[in-house]
C-alpha cells in the first residue's frame, strides 16, 4: 500500500448516549425520536440557572471493567473504555491478535476527567495536599482516554489527543485517517466527554450557552424561533477505522463506510468583518472527498441553538447546497450536546443512516422560516443515503466538517 492512498473505512462502532447504551439501543431510540434529556440527577441542580442534562443511565462501570481500574478513572474514561470494547466487538476484531505497532488511538477531549478533578481539588483545599489522590496526575488530564485505551488493548502505534472544543471529535477522526493513510492498519478514534458535576456545570454555565428551560421538551430547539441555548450531555462514540483493503482481506463483517473528506477552519477574530469559516470548512471537506454538493444525501448539523450560530449554520448549508437542497438533521436534540463526544456520535449515527436508509429526526423543533433548510423533524425520514456530511463547531470559532460515504461492496 502506497502511503497516502489508503482509504480509511469504519468497521466498528461503540456508542454511549443519554438515550441508549450500545449501538442497538441508541439507534432504536434515535429512530424512534426518544430523548434522554431530563433533570440533572447526579447533583441537586436547583440552585443553578440550568437544570437539564442528557445523562447516561444504566451504566455501571464495575459491570464492564476490572476493579483496579475503577479508582483511577473518571466516569468519562470508564465510558470511553467500554465504548472501545464495544467498537472492537462490533468490528469483530480482537486487538490482542493484531501487531502491536499496527494499531493506534486518537481521541478528542474538552475537559478531561473533570469530576475526578473536582474531588481532588476539594481534597487539596479542604484537607491538604497529602489528601490528593495518587491518580490525580493522570486521571483528569486530556490525554487520559487515549492512554487508558492503548493500555487496555495493547495498542502501541501512532497515538494522539486533540482539543478543539466541540469540533475536536472530527479533528480526531481526521487525524486517525491520516495515520491509516500513512500505513497504520487500524485506529480507534472518537471521544467521550462527561463533566456533569457541579464544578463542570459552573464552568459550562460561564459560556452562557446553556438553556435555562425546565421543560425537557422545549429546552434545546436548534433552528427554532424559540432557540435559547443547548442542554449539555455526556457520552460519545469510539469508532474502529481500518484500511479498506485490509478490512476486506480479513472479511470484516461490515464496512459502515469511508471517511471520505475533511475540512477545518477557524473563524476570523470578532470584529474583523470577514465571514465565518463554516461554509469554507464544508467546501474543503467536499473537495477533499472529490464530491459535488448534490452527491451529499444528508447533513448532520452542529445545531448550536443559539440564534446567531443557527443562522450562520443555516446560511452555510444553504450557500453550499441551495435552498432546502439537502435534508438536515440534529439527533443531538435527543441527547443534548456531548462536547467532544457529540461529533463522533453524529458520525456513528451517520453510518447507521447509511446502513439503514433512515434519517433520524430533530425532535420537537419547528424550524424558523428565516432558515431555508430542509430540517428532518418529528419523524424519521426514509431515503436512500449514500453519503452524509457531519458538522461540528467549537467555542471560540472552531469549524470542522467530515464527509462519509458508503463503500461499494
Amino acid at each position: 500500500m502506497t502511503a497516502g492512498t489508503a482509504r480509511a473505512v469504519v468497521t466498528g462502532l461503540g456508542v454511549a448516549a443519554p438515550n441508549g447504551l450500545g449501538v442497538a439501543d441508541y439507534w432504536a431510540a434515535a429512530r424512534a425520536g426518544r430523548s434522554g434529556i431530563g433533570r440533572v440527577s447526579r447533583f441537586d441542580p436547583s440552585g443553578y440557572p440550568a437544570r437539564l442534562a442528557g445523562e447516561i443511565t444504566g451504566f455501571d462501570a464495575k459491570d464492564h471493567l476490572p476493579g483496579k481500574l475503577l479508582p483511577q478513572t473518571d466516569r468519562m474514561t470508564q465510558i470511553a473504555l467500554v465504548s472501545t470494547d464495544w467498537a472492537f466487538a462490533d468490528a469483530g476484531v480482537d486487538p490482542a491478535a493484531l501487531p502491536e505497532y499496527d494499531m493506534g488511538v486518537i481521541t478528542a477531549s474538552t475537559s478531561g476527567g473533570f469530576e475526578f478533578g473536582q474531588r481532588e481539588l476539594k481534597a487539596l483545599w479542604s484537607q491538604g495536599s497529602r489528601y490528593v489522590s495518587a491518580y490525580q496526575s493522570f486521571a483528569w488530564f486530556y490525554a487520559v482516554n487515549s492512554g487508558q485505551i492503548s493500555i487496555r488493548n495493547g495498542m502501541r502505534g501512532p497515538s494522539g489527543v486533540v482539543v478543539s472544543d466541540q469540533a475536536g471529535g472530527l479533528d480526531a477522526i481526521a487525524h486517525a485517517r491520516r495515520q491509516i493513510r500513512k500505513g497504520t492498519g487500524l485506529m480507534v478514534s472518537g471521544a467521550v466527554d462527561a463533566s456533569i458535576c457541579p464544578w463542570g456545570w459552573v464552568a459550562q454555565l460561564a459560556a452562557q450557552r446553556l438553556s435555562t428551560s425546565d421543560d425537557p421538551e422545549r429546552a434545546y430547539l436548534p433552528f427554532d424561533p424559540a432557540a435559547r441555548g443547548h442542554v449539555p450531555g455526556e457520552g460519545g462514540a469510539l469508532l474502529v477505522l481500518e484500511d479498506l483493503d485490509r478490512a476486506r482481506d480479513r472479511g470484516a463483517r461490515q464496512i459502515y463506510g469511508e471517511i471520505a473528506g475533511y475540512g477545518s477552519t477557524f473563524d476570523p477574530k470578532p470584529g474583523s468583518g470577514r465571514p465565518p469559516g463554516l461554509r469554507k470548512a464544508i467546501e474543503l471537506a467536499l473537495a477533499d472527498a472529490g464530491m459535488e454538493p448534490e452527491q451529499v444525501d444528508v447533513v448532520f448539523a452542529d445545531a448550536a441553538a443559539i440564534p446567531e450560530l443557527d443562522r450562520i449554520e443555516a446560511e452555510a448549508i444553504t450557500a453550499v447546497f441551495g435552498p432546502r437542497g439537502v435534508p438536515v438533521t440534529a439527533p443531538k436534540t435527543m441527547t443534548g450536546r456531548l462536547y467532544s463526544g457529540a461529533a463522533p456520535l453524529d458520525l456513528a449515527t451517520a453510518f447507521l443512516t447509511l446502513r439503514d436508509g433512515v434519517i433520524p429526526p430533530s425532535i420537537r423543533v419547528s424550524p424558523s422560516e428565516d432558515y431555508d433548510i430542509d430540517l428532518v423533524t418529528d419523524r424519521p425520514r426514509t431515503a436512500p443515503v449514500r453519503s452524509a456530511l457531519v458538522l461540528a463547531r467549537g467555542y471560540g470559532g472552531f469549524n470542522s466538517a467530515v464527509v462519509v460515504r458508503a463503500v461499494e461492496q
Partner: protein
Amino acid sequence: MTAPHGRRVVITGIGVTAPGGVGTKAFWSLLTDGRTSTRRISLFDPSPFRSQVAAEVDFDADLLGLSPQEVRRMDRAAQFAVLTAREAVADSGLEFTALDPHRTGVTIGSAVGATMGLDQEYRTVSDSGRLDLVDHTYAVPHLYNFLVPSSFAAEVAWAVGAEGPSTVVSTGCTSGLDSIGYATELIREGTADVMVAGAADAPISPITVACFDAIKATTPRNDDPEHASRPFDGTRNGFVLGEGAAVFVLEEMESAKARGARIYAEIVGYASRSNAFHMTGLRSDGREMAEAIRVALDEARLNPEDIDYVNAHGSGTKQNDRHETAAFKNSLGEHAYAVPVSSIKSMVGHSLGAIGAIEIAASALAIEHNVVPPTANLSTPDPECDLDYVPVTARDWRTDAVLSVGSGFGGFQSAVVLARPERSAG
C-alpha cells in the same frame, strides 16, 4: 510524512518564553552558559508541599504588550502562548496579512491546559473546598476558556490572523513534539501552507504540585533549588516542575525559499508510539521509544550515525533516564555512545506539555549555532546512564541533524528529527 519528493516543512521563526529570561536570545544564552533557573517556588507558598522547587518564568504580561482585557481572559499559559507566537511571527519576517488565512493554521500543545486558572477559580467558587455545590455567582465570565484549553489555540489564531485548521494537541508531556508533528503533517499533506505551531504550559499551581507529590515524581531537594534538576546524575530523585512556551512558524520549504526566508532547520521526521504499559510507569528497556526513534529516522531517511546531537527527554526521574538511555542504545546502536546527548531540563525544568516545543527550539538553535547545550548538575556517574550527556559545559559541535525525544504519562513516546536545511536538501 513519507512522500520523498513531496512538500517539505521548515522552521522560519522561533519564539521562546522560558524560565531564566523571556525571549529566544535569553533562552539560548542561559543554555549555552549552563546556568540553571530552578528556585524555591514563588508563585504561591510551597511550604506545605513535599517538593518546593520549580523553574519559574519572570514575566509581566502588561509590559510585554497584552491588554488588561487579554490578561483577564487568558490563563497564564495562554498568555505565554500568545506572546511567544508573536515573537515567532516577528522573527519569521513573514507578512501574515498577505497570506491566505484559510491555509494558515495553529497547533498549540498543552498537557494540563489552564490548570492554574482552574485551581484559583475552584478555590473561589467552592469557598476553599467547603462547598460541594460550587457557587456559580462567583465564577469569572471567562471560566469556560479555562475549562476547555482549545482557547489557547483560539487566542493564538486571533493574534496571528489564522483561519485555517487550528487545535490544541494534548498528549501529556509529549504535547510539544506532537503539536509540531501534527502541524508538519498538515503542511506536508497540503492542508496548510503555514502553521504557527508550538506548546505552552503553566502548571506551577498547588494542585499540580500536589498531584506530583502524591507519586513522588518531583524532587524533594528543597535545600538546594539551583541544583535540584539532575538528569542522568546518580543522585537524581525526581523532576523539577517548569513553565513556559515555544512557538514556531513552520512553512512549506519552497515558498519559504522563494521569499528568501531564514531557515533554521527542516523537520525531516516525526513519530509517536505508545507503551501500552502503564499510565505513569515505564518499562526499563525503552522499546516503544526506540520504535518511535526508528520510525522518525526512517521517515527522515537518516541513519543513526547521521544524528549529531540527541536532545533527551532527561526528566531526572530514576526510571525515565534509565528508560531513555536504553531506548537510545536500542535505536541508535553503537552510535548512542558516540553522539552527544543532553537534557535542558537540568536548566529550565520540566514544563510538561511545553517542554517538547522548548526542546525543539534548543535543537534548532543547536543547528543554527553549532553548539550543543549541556546537562547541568551532572557530576555523579550512574552506571545505568553511561552515554555522553555533555556534563555542565556547552560544547562547540558541528550539528547538522538532531533527534529530540519525549516521554510522558499515558505512555506516549515521541521523536522529532531536525536537519540543517542545505544538508536535508541534498
